[in-house]
């Protein structure tokens, strides 16, 4: 039953949509019926799939870069206090500046390829990952830190190596659940970056396809692309969530919002 609930919700929404489309009698370029959208989806499957691959590549690359840079920033900020004052304003700026404002600049510099989309995606993802991981790293219990420092009194290594082992065996593992929360948020917002990037300037991708379908009043194609994008975004979240829970079986809060 648990598995079917999301399916029932989706079917319900489709029924309401079909009902509104039928009763309101709007022209199909304003509100196409779900039947028409599904037909278009299958008719133009090849076209949509080609653009979907571009968008998916952008999303995954943006996610990878955003998570990687976020983790590195969090580790640097946590390990070297002075870095905090230098890097933290940048982290906050990455979230505060509307990506719409810098996307045209990125397109100007890097062209119409996937580069600007990956950067915009990474920018959006960078913040939740950095803040989540940093929060986790700073929250290792003081009792554990005390115990570790006592165990390290007999260490033959210097301060830097000891600090490395402390991060490797205590701080980073303790921060992983917080990092996982950051990555979950990142996975949920990652598609925004790709679509924004494509809207500003591109030659392929679902955002590009939607923009063109809209301009040519092919509203059914717009809806079909939107369906595919939604499906990709939701699947991405679930796959990431599933992977994270497999990776952290010891995490106390196994119950998830969406499961």
């Amino acid at each position, binding site marked *: 039953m648990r598995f079917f609930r999301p399916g029932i919700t989706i079917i319900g929404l489709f029924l309401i949509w079909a009902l509104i489309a039928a009763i309101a009698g709007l022209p199909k370029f304003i509100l196409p019926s779900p039947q028409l959208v599904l037909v278009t989806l299958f008719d133009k499957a090849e076209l949509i799939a080609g653009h979907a691959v571009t968008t998916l590549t952008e999303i995954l690359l943006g996610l990878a870069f955003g998570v990687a840079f976020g983790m590195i920033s969090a580790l640097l900020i946590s390990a070297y206090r002075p870095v905090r004052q230098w890097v933290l304003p940048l982290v906050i700026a990455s979230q505060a500046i509307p990506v719409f404002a810098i996307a045209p600049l990125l397109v100007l510099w890097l062209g119409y390829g996937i580069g600007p989309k990956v950067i915009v995606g990474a920018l959006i993802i960078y913040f939740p990952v950095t803040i989540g991981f940093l929060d986790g790293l700073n929250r290792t*219990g003081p*009792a*554990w830190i*005390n*115990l*570790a*420092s*006592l*165990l*390290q*009194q*007999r*260490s*033959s*290594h210097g301060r830097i*190596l*000891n600090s490395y*082992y*402390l991060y490797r*065996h*205590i701080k980073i*593992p303790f921060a992983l659940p917080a990092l996982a929360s950051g990555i979950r948020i990142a996975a949920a917002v990652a598609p925004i970056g790709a679509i924004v990037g494509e809207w500003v300037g591109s030659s392929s991708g679902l955002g590009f396809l939607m923009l063109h379908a809209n301009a040519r009043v092919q509203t059914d194609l717009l809806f079909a692309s939107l369906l595919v994008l939604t499906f990709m975004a939701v699947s991405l979240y679930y796959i990431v969530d599933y992977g994270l829970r497999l990776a*952290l079986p*010891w995490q*106390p809060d196994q119950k998830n919002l969406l499961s």
Partner: protein
Amino acid sequence: MTSSNLSHLPGSNPSPENYGDQATVPLGVELVLVKLSFGETLILENLELILPAGQITCLLGPSGVGKTSILKILAGFIPLTGNSRITCSDSLPLHSRVSYMDQSDLLLPWASVVENVAIGARLRGERPDLMRAREILCDVGLKDWLSARPDILSGGMRQRVALARTLMDDCPVVLMDEPFSALDALTKLRLQDMAAKLLHGKTVLLITHDPIEALRLGHVIHVLSGSPTRISNAIRPDEAIPRDPASDSLKSHYSDIMEKLSQTEADIT
């Protein structure tokens, strides 16, 4: 008091054949604390505490008298200030010869029981002696749980893993901060017996608020009371540990301890 004054403590003149082997030579420790305060509040001053070599010293007292602070000073978590000092019977620093057991088990939730016991070596970048870890875990009765994750263990079992981790590095001095206080009565009793056996020959400082626990395990018992805190004269019950708290000979000690503890109340009211 200098280190030469500690020569009356057992273990300060190790026999030549095991000299320098810190595991086999019990180490006497003396702490002289001139002053300890948190911000403006004076917690204690002019405290002298001797931990006789190879014996269990219990510090008993209500919360807020600075029991845990004394332990943290010995562990090096709180730096010594002014003329306060720690002296060992072999005149070497105490640093790196101390292990520590907390009220909470401090097990790493992602690591197996064996890996939890071996965490010290990992934190030092050494190859852990997993054979030894397994042996100690057998000693604390966890032979069948070596690869289990801590979350499936009971509170008593988790604390036994923590005890095994405390014994893993074979330090001559063991500091314990109310290690059994969160356990039920029967589990507590069993763990006290186990600790008495496994800590044999080690110099132990056991902090507790439970007079029965102090009477069961302490070769030497001090009561901390008052504000600023004063330390009582040593109470030294005769029998070997672990003692039966119901025995007649402990009754006089028990009332002695209760009297010293209730002086605290009198000071406050």
